[in-house]
């Protein structure tokens, strides 16, 4: 019976772990610690402070080891606004007819390239020498990233993360 229970437990663990990555390591203070260069779904995250002080930790959706900024390239955006369009013409008998219609007028505008902070997936403060854990509120909708996964703490820390690569 004990062996059967052990076997069932190991099967359950194997089923849960299938396709997921669990990794742990040290987070360098004040640096981008790139965990993944591809989008991931975060299933659980645990951060333990080793600096001895309150430690602000930010998890970014980026794969850059050097910056927490993302350069948004310039692009052309579109929109529309309501305006009056006056149509005026001289009819066949020489009478000037004028109509005013309310229309939506489309426009485009250039948006310059900008440098913004990369999207923050999670932002927290880990109290000194303590551990903070995060799991999604709904396991069916894990927190996901598009460009990568990077953790940047102010002070030194260690982490354990379980995530599912999206691609």
């Amino acid at each position, binding site marked *: 019976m004990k062996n059967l229970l052990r076997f069932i437990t190991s099967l359950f663990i194997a089923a849960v772990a*299938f*396709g*997921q990555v669990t990794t742990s390591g040290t987070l360098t203070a004040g640096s981008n610690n790139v965990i993944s260069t*591809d*989008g991931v*779904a975060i299933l659980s995250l645990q951060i333990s402070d080793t600096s001895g002080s309150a430690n602000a930790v930010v998890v970014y*959706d980026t794969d850059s080891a050097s910056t927490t900024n*993302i350069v*948004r*390239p*310039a*692009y*052309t*955006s*579109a*929109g*529309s606004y309501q305006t009056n369009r006056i149509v005026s013409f001289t009819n066949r008998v020489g009478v000037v007819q004028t*109509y005013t219609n*309310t229309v939506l007028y*489309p426009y*485009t505008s250039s*948006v310059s*390239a900008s440098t913004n902070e990369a*999207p923050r*997936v999670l932002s927290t403060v880990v109290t000194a020498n303590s551990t903070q854990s995060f799991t999604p509120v709904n*396991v*069916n*909708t*894990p*927190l*996901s*990233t*598009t*460009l990568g996964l990077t953790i940047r703490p102010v002070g030194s820390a260690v982490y354990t993360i379980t995530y*599912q690569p*999206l*691609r």
Partner: protein
Amino acid sequence: MWDLTPAMQAWDQQDVNQFNRLPVWMAVQQVKRLKYYSRWRRKYKKLPWKPNMGSLLQGIIPEPSPKTRQVAAPRNITEVAYRTQVSHYERSNTGRVKHQKFESPQFNFLPSFQDFRAQQIPFATEDLMKQIATYYDDFIRWQALQQSPFVYIVNNTTAGEGNYIPAVYGEATDTSSPKDAGWFANMLLKVGAGDGGFLDFRQMCAVRDYAEVKAGIVPWSGLPGEPGENNVQQGKYMLTGEKTLYRALAFDTHILQNRPLAMNLLNSTFAGTISENINFLEEMYPLRFAEDGSFPQPEIEVELPALTYGSTMRYEVMPNAAYVNAPGGVAFFEGNEPYEDLEIGPPPAPFSQKNISMDKFTKLRWNGEVTLTDNILTNLGSNQFDTNKYGEYLQLISYCTMGIIAKTSRFCLPVIYRRKIAPSLTIA
């Protein structure tokens, strides 16, 4: 050797390399490949092109007057009645004929004569035909994407915008496209993170709702009549995209929570229409873009390790990692006839017929048909050229004309989402 004593060379063996042998045994291996199926080329109704009408088509569509009020308050009979004057306008669309040539390198007769693998030309012909078919599909799809005035961003994170947003649009040319790489890169940054930005069941329904309410899209099939009690206006829409979107429905939270017990998701997968009126069409090479807004090539030649015997050039065509891992995906939600495919028809008569006086000249074929020609110049090196008068060389050529004209381009709504490869692993 004569008169050897028993002790002399008693253990001699015959040299194993004494006689001729083939170094390798060559066999042609048959490999099954997925056949390309066209999606976009046959999707829209054909509009036959009339010759001698120029190269620019202007389509005219009468537009009804808009319903400009929700409240009606006429005067009493004892007063002078108000008048409502109704007038309508026209709108126009333009489409242009485009053309593209396809060809193979020049084939010399010698490989077909001496090489082990026969049927080299037929294989090259099929290969060229696939490139032509995919090119035509890509052309239609790219124009549909570029000329769409609105797009749907799954779970748009930009405050105040909403998911259904206006987009820059226009005809894409060979040198520029209104929706450029910078535009796609910015759209990807808007895609939400809350539910992963993936186009799941609920988001598909949301696209349909936005399309009906905001865009007023007429259904793809079936012009709906008056809905009865406890019913809404009928009519189906078409969602075209990568297979992962449809496969993911078998693991979708909403479906799992509400599916009928008879739906077998163990030995089968989700099947049928999505939420009453969304039909799904899988694409073989769906549209995917990278973080910087560029579109990676779908397939790539991978260099394989060299063999001791065999060709020094060993390549295998595989899905490109940059393509399969691209974070951004584009699906298309469509209603009724957003575009028409221009059917160019035959070339002008003097160029398309062979009569006695034109017998020496090549007939112009621009319907994409692949033909084998020996009507080529050969480069002999050192700036010397000669005709192929001895017929030593052949070349596969094809000339394709194409065109597309919008009817109601807002009836094609591109949906930008964040991709997943294996949704079964990311949805519990």
